[in-house]
């Protein structure tokens, strides 16, 4: 199964919807250990993407993602803006001019996204950030891909690992981002950025499920 530019548009619409649905929830998570704006920030960014989605429908996947990157960078702000913005930008690099990609290419793009996040934020796993959802998710993706899973199976494994990753952030002590100012008091709370990353993987899975 190939993923085409229409699927990417659908994925973006689903992701935007999920972010909007969980706006309050993400903000609430961020109130506990941050400054209470993560849901608001993410929703502002994805709403911006949605506002010009129609101009993207006939574009190649690289262009779509690069345009999303610019929208996120220039509207989200906060820590998550440059991080997700850089993620989309890095993901777009290998997809320029392509209207269809396979699961191998998707994995490469996702790995590039993670690399972008780490270049920008200088965090590693275990610091209670979005990386704690994304890194294990990509490992699960790769394993399932190698063991010959179907696209939906691959993304089911990815989402499950992301979910596990989100849960793992609860007992962590934050050492990057705003939550790190709390020191030990950050322990016991779920990381908002990891949670939004999980939602985005879920949007990918649902897009593929509808396709088959």
């Amino acid at each position, binding site marked *: 199964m190939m993923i085409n530019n229409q699927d990417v548009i659908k994925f973006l619409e689903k992701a935007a919807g999920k972010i909007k649905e969980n706006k309050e929830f993400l903000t609430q998570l961020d109130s506990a250990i941050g*400054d209470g*704006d993560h849901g608001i920030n993410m929703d502002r960014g994805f709403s911006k993407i949605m506002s010009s989605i129609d101009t993207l429908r006939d574009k190649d996947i690289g262009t779509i993602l690069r345009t999303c990157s610019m929208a996120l960078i220039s509207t989200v702000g906060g*820590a998550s803006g*440059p991080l997700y913005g850089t993620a989309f930008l890095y993901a777009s690099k290998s997809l320029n001019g392509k209207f269809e990609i396979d699961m191998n290419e998707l994995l490469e793009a996702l790995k590039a996204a993670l690399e972008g996040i780490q270049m920008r934020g200088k965090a590693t796993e275990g610091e209670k950030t979005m990386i704690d959802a994304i890194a294990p998710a990509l490992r699960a993706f790769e394993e399932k891909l190698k063991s010959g899973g179907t696209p939906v199976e691959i993304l089911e494994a990815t989402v499950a690992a992301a979910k596990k990753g989100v849960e793992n952030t609860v007992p962590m002590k934050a050492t990057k981002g*705003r939550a790190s*100012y709390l020191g030990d008091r950050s322990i016991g709370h779920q990381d908002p950025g990891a949670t939004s990353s999980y939602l985005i993987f879920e949007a990918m899975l649902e897009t593929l499920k509808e396709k088959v």
Partner: protein
Amino acid sequence: MKKIINKPEDVVKESVEGLGLAWSEIVKVNYEPMFVYRADAPVNNKVAIISGGGSGHEPMHAGFVGYGMLDAACPGEVFTSPTPDQMYEAAKKVHGGAGILFIVKNYSGDVMNFEMAADMLKAEGIDVENVIIDDDVAVKDSLYTQGRRGVGTTVLAEKICGAAAEKGYDLKKLAELCKKVNGWGRSMGMALTPCTVPAAGKPTFELAEDEMEIGIGIHGEPGRERMKIKSADEITEMLAEAIIEDLPFKEGDEVLAFVNSMGGTPEIELYIVYRKLYKILESKGIKIARKLVGRYITSLEMQGVSITLLKLDDELKELWDAPVKTPALRWGI
């Protein structure tokens, strides 16, 4: 949520618009993307100083744009870092050919967004120095963490570097000066009440009627410790001691003492804190050579106070005293 606003999503834009209308002789406003800049920009051959950050800390930063302080300020949404396109466009507007100094508070969002803007400008051959302010002693510092937050010293660095830029400091010297101010400045704050981000509609945290939060940040993020409310003298002592022992400030030092309201705390209380701070410093042989008392770096309507001490030498004193003309800070002109 009790606020004098229209739609929550219009708060920043309308407020900046009001600032621009009120102070058109000093500042201009650019809306897409949003930044506030000196009406007489660019000032040729002067290093342009740009700061910015989430809104809700007024008058910081837009209230500090003008002669002798900032060339431009980039306001983000309330408590949310501005985006790189704001800093990029602001820099293009105010660059006078001598480079750009970014004064950035140490929050991961601010740091990353300013970094992205700096990357974009450097790619076009514009010199940019990024100086991070991280003066909040409430946060434990370590190599492996984000480090300390940037708070009160930011205001002092903007004033002092602004004066130095007018005097002709080049970009390298100005960046060094900014790092010196950051190295010599220490702050800590506390809150009696939380504040409410308009878009969120409810307080960022809860505090019981008899509780206060010590070591609070400027975004309503929880602080170091929650405890029963104490007297003004005890609160001042807690903040001052933590600050003094951190640098440490020593007998014979001259300092600038900055007593700041988080927004909702009225002036009558600020001077009660100043009085005690004066006595504490006096008893330790530390001399207040300059002072600033008022609301300069706030958290919306939060009640609370922060103290900043900045060690002074002749260079800093002279630059502090130099004329400044901005909406929120003005003297000598």
